[in-house]
């Protein structure tokens, strides 16, 4: 379980303290997948940076499985908007980097998992290629594989599908949900697409303008529904979210 208590982030700009995020509080059950939706500049990415251990100075607490969040202690997977593949490592080496950093030896069980995930995401044939030689969709699949190969306590994604064209995006989302359902890592992802939030988020958290605070948390009844766009409930929910956003974002 991930507990976020009064989390806030501020930074100093020209001798003024600017509050960038929060305070926000929420609890995320293990195996949940949370979509965070909010206007640009509301601190969505900042929140992910705190949860991924990149920002170390923040107010309040973030507790994962009973211990203070710490990237050295917990296994955290982070997929940034640009996918975060290192240009000087080929796909396979990029995927295995997390294991290397965590000093994990590849035994037969892990090998099986790696092969399964790479197969599932169809990147076996790309193993020897460098990120520069890949299309956006291929990079994305490699980034997802990297995150799932390590058995993450917490998976974080910053607008993971926004750099893809519409068709590739839909495929990537389907593929992602497919793999996610298999391992169900606790996941927090940031998006600005209502559709994506409804499709992938078990819960949808709506943030307000800067400094972002929680406007509403919606339990998404449509999570894991196939043929989402044909569902009547979908239209109702997305217009509901749209209304909240319009209200919330005016504050």
């Amino acid at each position, binding site marked *: 379980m991930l507990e976020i208590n009064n989390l806030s982030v501020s930074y100093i700009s020209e001798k003024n303290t600017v509050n960038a995020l929060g305070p926000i509080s929420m609890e995320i059950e293990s195996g949940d997948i949370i979509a965070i939706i909010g206007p640009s500049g509301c601190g969505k990415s900042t929140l992910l940076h705190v949860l991924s251990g*990149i920002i170390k100075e923040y107010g309040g607490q973030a507790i994962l499985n009973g211990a203070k969040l710490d*990237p050295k202690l917990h296994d*955290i*997977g*982070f997929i940034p908007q640009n996918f*975060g593949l*290192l240009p000087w490592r080929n796909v396979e080496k990029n995927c295995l*980097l997390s294991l290397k*950093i965590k000093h994990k030896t590849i035994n037969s069980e892990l090998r099986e998992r790696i092969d399964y995930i790479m197969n599932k995401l169809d990147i076996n044939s790309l193993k020897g290629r460098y990120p*520069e030689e890949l299309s956006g969709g291929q990079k994305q699949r490699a980034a997802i594989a990297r995150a799932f190969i390590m058995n993450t306590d917490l998976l974080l994604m910053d607008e993971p599908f926004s750099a893809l064209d519409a068709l590739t995006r839909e495929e990537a989302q389907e593929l992602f949900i497919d793999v996610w359902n298999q391992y169900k890592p606790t996941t927090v992802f940031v998006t600005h697409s209502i559709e994506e939030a409804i499709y992938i988020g078990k819960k949808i958290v709506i943030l307000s303008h800067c400094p972002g605070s929680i406007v509403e948390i919606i339990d998404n009844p449509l999570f894991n529904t196939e043929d989402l766009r044909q569902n009547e409930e979908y239209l109702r929910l997305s217009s509901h979210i749209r209304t909240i956003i319009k209200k919330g974002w005016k504050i």
Partner: protein
Amino acid sequence: MKLKEKTRLFLQGFIMINVLWYLLAIIVDTRVLPTPIEVYLNLNNLYDSRLHIHILISLYRVIYGVGISLLLGVSTGLLMAYSKTWNKVLNPLVYFTYPVPKTALLPVAMLLFGLGDTSKVIVIVLILVFQVIIAVRDAVLNIPADTYNPIRSLGASRLQIFRYITLPAILPAMLTNLRLSIGTALSILFFAEGYGTQFGIGYYILDAWTRIDYIGMYTGIVSISLFGFVLFVLIDILEETVCKWKAWNK
């Protein structure tokens, strides 16, 4: 670049420069500028004049000078990139000394460290080290901050971050710098070997010149050029091995 393409490039360049040289020699028609054919025929006699020893000694000085410059320059550059305090302390020094023509310090180095190899290597180091420092520091500072994010979220140690991000990110810049450094070191050598030594390819050329042995002089020039070219090819090979990921390799 493929090996075939490179060989073609080399041959093209080689033929072009020799044709130009040949035409110029015919037009000018003076003993001071012999045709390439005369010079190449003389290459047979090189073993007798122990040219290989001169080349080896020059090579030793280049490696020594470039090696020390890289060692000092890379460590200082990293220090300045990682520590704001050190950058503040050292930056004025680097900035101020960078444009000073350090070849002018050769007499000073010779007075202080004698006529031997030490003063020659010191001059090479003085000239190279500052450009290495600046190149390394700027290469590290130019790594986009978000490159580090995924590895930080894995809780990587400082050493791991250096090993997996900083080092590979600055390698291309460092190799470019090595290339420039070797080119520069060779030119400095030509000047530095004019004094206090009877060995080295620079000495060989200057000695042939004073003896009015123009064919010998050109043989030396051709050798130092080929020598520089071999070093360049070696760096190419090194670059292709350690920077496989670079697009220009494909």
